[in-house]
């Protein structure tokens, strides 16, 4: 006969499960704690520094006073430029992968390309930007070079988001359009793409929030330590918020004097990025819930 499961064995197994689940829960909690600690630190130390002046003033006195205005504007230029450059390619790629490709070698090759690109470290994008955009194409250290570099960086993110959004459109929509004699392009343009727009926009927001926080790719391609004016042409250098935080934190001459400014800048960046991400997450959840097709 099989050994009977005694009450004691049952009790032990139940206790083991309780302990195990508690450990699993605590591990999950560690992610919450990490996020909480970062948020708390930035808010507790940076909230006071943030004011209208801080956001709209130039740095003064060797960046020991004043605000982050040019860094904000610079980051906006770089990010907007990157999105503007990458989005058309990304949407087209997603449309081809999701709507036109019929499996086969090229799909695999392109997918490998997208996945590999997503795995390339951001500093390597910076190296490419330096070697190609700055040096070979002669754009110099400039807004253009930085935006191009960031565009390559967010390309795979946008493609994946776009493809996911297109895949979420049910097959019946396409079949409906095609059965009425619409061409493929007509079906995509009038039926598939409009249904996928919310998903694509979510992806765009995630792309922006990624681009705005990246430092390594713009270090040698666009970013300036300090500028007394905003960039006037696309071939000017710019200040950028993440790079500003980096140089303040590592090269600031007087730590205590600039501590508040540093936390303020960090909070500004973190706040922007998290709000965008949170918005995208919440919006995506709502879109998914509403569209019960």
């Amino acid at each position, binding site marked *: 006969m099989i050994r009977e499961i005694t009450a004691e064995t049952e009790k032990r197994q139940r206790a083991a499960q309780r302990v195990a689940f508690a450990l699993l829960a605590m591990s999950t909690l560690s992610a919450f704690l990490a996020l909480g600690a970062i948020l708390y630190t930035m808010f507790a130390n940076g909230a006071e520094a943030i004011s209208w002046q801080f956001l709209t003033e130039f740095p003064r006195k060797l960046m020991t006073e004043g605000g982050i205005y040019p860094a904000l504007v610079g980051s906006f230029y770089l990010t907007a430029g990157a999105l503007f450059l990458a989005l058309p390619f990304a949407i087209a790629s997603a449309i081809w992968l999701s709507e036109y*490709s019929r499996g086969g070698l090229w799909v695999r090759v392109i997918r490998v*390309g997208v996945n590999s690109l997503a795995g*390339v470290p951001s500093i390597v994008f910076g190296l*490419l930007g330096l070697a190609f955009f700055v040096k070979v194409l002669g754009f110099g250290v400039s807004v253009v070079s930085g935006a191009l570099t960031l565009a390559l960086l967010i390309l795979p993110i946008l493609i994946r988001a776009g493809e996911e959004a297109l895949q979420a459109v049910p097959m019946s929509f396409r079949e409906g359009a095609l059965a009425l004699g619409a061409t493929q392009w007509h079906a995509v343009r009038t039926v598939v793409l409009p249904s996928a727009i919310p998903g694509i926009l979510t992806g765009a927001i995630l792309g922006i929030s990624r681009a705005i926080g990246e430092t*390594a790719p713009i270090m040698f391609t666009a970013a300036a330590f300090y500028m007394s004016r905003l960039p006037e042409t696309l071939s000017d250098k710019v200040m950028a918020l993440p790079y500003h935080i980096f140089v303040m934190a590592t090269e600031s001459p007087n730590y205590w004097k600039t501590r508040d400014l540093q936390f303020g800048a*960090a909070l500004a960046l973190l706040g922007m990025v998290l709000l965008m991400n949170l918005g995208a997450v919440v919006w995506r959840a709502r879109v998914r819930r509403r569209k019960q097709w």
Partner: protein
Amino acid sequence: MRKAGARGLLAMLRERWDRPLFFSLACASLVALGLILFFIFREAAPVLREIGLGGFFGRVWNPAGEPVSYGALPMIVGSALVTLAALLVAVPLGFAAAAFIAEVAPRWMKDVAKSVLELLAGVPSVIYGFFGLMIVAPALQNAFNLATGRTALTASVILAIMALPTIASLAEDALTAVPNAYREASMALGATRWQTIRNVTFPAAFSGLIGASILGMGRAVGETMAVLMVAGNAPQIVASLLKPVRTLTGAIALEMGETALGSTHYHALFALGVVLLVITLATNGAAEWFRGRLARKHGR
């Protein structure tokens, strides 16, 4: 046909050319990857002539010294040390969190936890670096009574936090991909949920979990800003986590700004980029393979 004629030649062209147009635009990411490979290798190539492979894999990195030396080993060891130490924490923690989210947590908690992971993954690396510099480094300096808080350990702690969401959410995918039939079979035999997770779900998801860890490793090796800010950046081969180290990414970020375009130093930094690129592409490929194996095994 008549309709197409009425819409004009332009419309017809547009209808006929959509496929090749989208296809060529879809090749953009291939072009980007090609550019990266071409230029990084091209700019690194002179290293072979000017330093030689033996010199490049030497033990001393001293671009400004007498004699000048471009040995990359300190950075390779530094990256490996920091990454492995980070994974030692992030992998078990990530698997555990994944198991909790995929198998234990009720629906609402699952959604909240996944959102938190997503937000954590979205925090810019410069913020992690800043947090490490301001909070973690001083804390570790006090705790271990060190001369500086910027050490391999500090970098590992920060990297562990950064790798956690990647590993946890990929591991969660792997666990979720395990067919429910396995869970049902196990539960129907009277296994507890924990026994089911340990004896059935985890083994069945094994290759996916490996893939998640490898991808986390690739991310950690390639991470730049956070590591640059807290690792201390001393180009030395160390045996202790409590010493400052310089990583591959750190060396590039730190030194590229100070070097003349086209100098030997410049080429040597690109060669570090090649090492980095090879490591990350290899880990990426391996991770994809493992994750694909999981999908193939369970017929999806």
